[in-house]
């Protein structure tokens, strides 16, 4: 929490599909430079909320601002200011790491020189120089995941959305991945992350827990454990899920 400015502001957000409400009256703020954990069981409405924050879907009602831009009218400005990494890692398997970085840099309108510099930087940081020109499908999952994160950050967004970024990856790689997240947060990037691993929830600055389309709790992990009289975040989650 390097400064107290809100970079995401959501107030009274509703999203309905016919008679079914996927998001019910969500209100929360995310501060610039914060690691914000967005937790909830499958089907709790996380994905819907993320799609709205990314400018893919319009809310049914409510006020939503991302990086100071309105999701109803300024989705294009939002899109240039955010990065997105999906749980499938979203790399082109038949392209090399270099080509993937160049492609994503290109669709964000970066210049040739900028792309070249950032590609070099990324390959060094990830120690991928040796495989820079072999197709992504030959890389181990952990490397793909790091590359995917780097690609999501290639245009230096203010906010990056990570949708279950650590699925199917071993604990050591997960730990390394979280180190990358911390580094990005230290540079002032806001991290909006969903996860099913409760130990990862402990790494977040603040955590919100959703159930049935509503936010049931939102605070720092320490405060949440105090509030629900629980030993771990896992217990907090189970208590909330049981009530819901």
């Amino acid at each position, binding site marked *: 929490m390097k400064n107290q400015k809100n970079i995401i502001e959501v107030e009274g957000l509703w999203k309905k599909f016919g008679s079914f409400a996927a998001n019910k009256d969500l209100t929360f703020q995310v501060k610039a430079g914060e690691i914000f954990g967005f937790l909830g069981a499958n089907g709790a409405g996380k994905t819907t909320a993320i799609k709205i924050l990314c400018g893919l879907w319009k809310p049914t009602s409510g006020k939503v601002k991302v990086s100071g831009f309105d999701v109803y009218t300024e989705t294009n400005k939002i899109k240039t200011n955010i990065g997105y990494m999906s749980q*499938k890692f979203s790399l*082109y398997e038949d392209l090399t790491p270099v080509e993937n970085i160049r*492609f994503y840099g290109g669709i*964000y309108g970066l210049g040739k020189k900028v792309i070249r510099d950032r590609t070099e930087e990324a390959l060094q940081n990830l120690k991928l120089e040796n495989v820079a020109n072999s197709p992504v499908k030959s890389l181990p999952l952990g490397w793909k995941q790091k590359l995917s994160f780097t690609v999501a950050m290639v245009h230096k967004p203010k906010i990056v959305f990570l949708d279950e970024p650590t699925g199917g990856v071993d604990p050591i790689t997960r730990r390394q991945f979280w180190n990358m997240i911390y580094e990005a947060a230290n540079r002032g990037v806001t991290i909006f992350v969903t996860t099913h691993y409760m130990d990862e929830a402990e790494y977040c600055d603040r955590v919100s827990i959703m159930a049935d389309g509503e936010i049931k709790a939102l605070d720092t992990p320490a405060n949440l454990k105090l509030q629900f009289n629980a030993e771990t975040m896992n217990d907090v989650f189970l208590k909330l899920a049981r009530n819901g």
Partner: protein
Amino acid sequence: MKQFIGLLRKEFYHIFRDYRTLLILFGMPVVQLLIFGFALTNDIKNAPIAILDHSKDELSRQLTQKILSSGYFILVENLESEDAIEASFKKGNIKQVLILEQGFASKIERDGSASLQILADASDPNIARILTNYIMGIVNDFQNELMKDTKLPVEITPEVKMLYNTELKSVFMFVPGVITVLLLLISAMMTSISIAREKEMGTMEVLLVSPLRPIQIIIGKVLPYVILAFTLAVVILLLGYFVFDVPVRGSVVLLLVYSIIYIVLALSLGIFISSVVNSQQVAMLISMAALMLPTIMLSGFIFPVENMPWPLQWMSYIIPAKWFIIIIRGVMLKAIGVGLLWKETLILFVMIAFFIGLSVKKFKIRLE
């Protein structure tokens, strides 16, 4: 624009890295054309026949000589009497027997008419019909020569006249047909698969989150296949021209323009398919079942639509290939211009508008 070029470059990487698919794409038309052109050809060469010449005079010998030197027939045996005919057929190695009546030459000299009987093995009616046509053509020719020499009227055999394809070359039908089927397959199947792949891999989400507009994404995905399909059409035309002497009698420019219109139609069909499905397998299955079979069976490529029962005829109206095949045959073989093809052209455009409209609607519902 720069973003868009990046998108195109990426798509070409996909195409060229997947060299197996590329090989199939370009190998398939070549192999198909060669098979259709040479092996499956309806042209019959060296058909075994027998001749029963009752008169054995100058004229009858000239006629049989002319028939045998045409290259279509090979003489297996000279029969001596009618009794030998059935045995000869039953051995199964001849397709036809020609019978020239007694006193062939003298009858022509005296009455100006003589008869030639053709017995055909109709267990394969298609071959029988074709061989009969060949012989009638040759006899007709022979008769004309006689009239020129003798300046006497000579009996007129039923005249069979073949328009546009005087030699009954079936490759004239196959080249337009192969183009029609392949352009549709490649354009519709390849685009639907490649868009479905982006959905399956989750990269479509990332593209949608990026500042690219949906229309840029779609055009970026589709344009490389327009280029690919167009190249293929040109390759098939060249192959037809140089290997099989299939001419383009009408305007080449018009033919290419029509090919592009048809490719766009096939692509809009592909986009529509991909807007309905979420996996590559389903996209492939739908393209195969819903596009390939009806296109081959009902477009008039192999089987004439006019001979089908009316429910199938009605079905053929909604098949894009049926209309394109009329256009492409018209332009290539009959040298027709837009004036006579306005109805087919209009239908192609209506179909394009229909499928694109439908896809846009589906797309909007998903973004809702």
